[in-house]
C-alpha cells in the first residue's frame, strides 16, 4: 500500500489533496499503469477518510484521466504517457514556484538564486 499524507490545516479540500498525493505516487513510479488501487472501504480505513470522500478522489482521478473504474472490479491506474508528461510539467513548475517563494522570503537575491542554481546543478553533474 502506498503512503498518503493529508494536511488537515490546509484549506485545500481533502479530496483534492488525496488525489494530488496519488498523482505524485504515479509520477514517482510507485504506482504504475495497470496497478489496482485499494478498494474504497480499505483506503477509507487506512487514511481515515469518509468513504464518500475516497469515492470522490477516485472519480476526480478518473475525470482527469489517471484512473479507470471498472464496474464490479474496482479502480485501476490507467493513463496515457502524454497525460503524465503534462502533469509532470505542472507539478515541477508548482514545486519550483514554491521553492523560489521560500528562498525569496528568507532574503535571497535573484543573483544568489542564479549562482546557487548553477552550483548545485553543476555539482550534481560532476558527481
Amino acid at each position, binding site marked *: 500500500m502506498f503512503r498518503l499524507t*493529508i494536511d*488537515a*490545516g*490546509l*484549506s485545500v*479540500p*481533502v479530496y483534492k489533496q488525496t488525489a494530488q498525493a496519488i498523482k505524485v505516487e504515479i509520477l514517482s513510479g510507485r504506482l504504475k499503469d495497470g496497478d489496482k488501487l485499494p478498494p*474504497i*472501504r480499505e483506503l*477509507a*480505513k487506512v487514511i*481515515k*477518510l*469518509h*468513504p*464518500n*470522500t475516497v469515492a470522490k478522489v477516485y472519480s476526480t482521478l478518473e475525470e482527469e484521466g489517471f484512473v479507470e473504474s471498472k464496474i464490479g472490479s474496482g479502480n485501476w491506474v490507467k493513463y496515457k504517457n502524454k497525460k503524465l508528461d503534462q502533469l509532470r510539467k505542472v507539478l515541477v513548475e508548482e514545486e519550483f514556484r514554491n521553492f523560489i517563494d521560500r528562498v525569496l522570503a528568507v532574503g535571497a537575491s535573484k543573483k544568489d538564486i542564479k549562482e546557487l542554481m548553477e552550483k548545485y546543478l553543476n555539482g550534481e553533474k560532476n558527481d
Partner: protein
Amino acid sequence: MIDVKDLSVRFGGKTVLDAINVQFEKGEFVTIAGNNGAGKTTFLRTLMGIVTPVKGEVTYDTGISKGKIGFMSDRSGFFENFTLKQGIDFHSRVYRLDQFDDTLLRHLGLDLKTKVKHLSVGERVLFLFSLVISQKPGILFIDEILHTIDPYLREVFLEHLLEVIDRFNTTVITVNHTFSEIETIPGRILVMEDGRIILDESAEVIKTKIKKIESTGEIPGDIPVLYKKEVLEYNEYYVYPFSEELRKSFDYQFRDLTLSEIIKSFIGGYYVKKRISRGS
C-alpha cells in the same frame, strides 16, 4: 431524510433549544460543536425522541425504522449487572436483530461472561458500538465519546465506524469537542450557541471562510473579526467571514486553520461576547 422544523425545548422555563430548523441528508457525516451548555446534547436527544419538544417537530424518512437508529453516549448507563451475553440478548430483543456482530468483542478478547460494570471505559464504548453495528444502522448519533477512549481503541473504533458507513450508507451525527483523529472526516459542521445553530457549512467551505492573522498592532476595523486572542507581544485575529478580496486589500498573511482551530475560535468568540454582555 431528517427534517427538523421550528424545534424548541424548554427545561423549567429556560429555553434550551430555540426554534431550530435544519435538514440532514442520507449518508452525511455531520459534526455539531459549540460551548458547554449550547444545547448540543439536548438537540441530539430531541432528534432521537428522548426529549419532548415544546414546539416544532422532527420527521424521519419513511424508509427508516426505529431499529436502525443507533445511539452512543458516555452517559448511556445500561445493564450494569448484566453479563455481556445478557446485554446482547436484551438489545437483540429490543431492536429485533437477526444476529449479533461479535467482531469487535473478539478483537478485544472480551469474554461474554464478563459483567458490563467490570469493563473499562474504552471497552464499554466498543461493546456499545458492537451492539449498534449489529443494528445495521441507517442513522448513528454519537455524543462525545471519542475523547473518553485511549488512542488505540479510538483507532479501532474509527476504522469500524468507517466500515459501517460504507456498508450501510449511514448518516452520522456526532457531537464533538476534540477533533484530532477525525479532522478530515466530517463533511458538514454545525456550531451551536444558546440553543441556536449559528453556523451550518460544509467542512470544505468553512475552511475558505475563516482565516487567522497575527499582528503586533490593532488591525483595521473593516476586517471582520470573530475572535481576538492576545499572545505574548502580538494578537491573533480570527477573521470571519473571510473573502479573497481581503487578501488583495490588506497586506496581512491570512493563514489557513484546522477544523479544531475553527471550532475553538467560534467558541472563544462566544465567551468574549458573554464577558462583554456581563460587563466585566
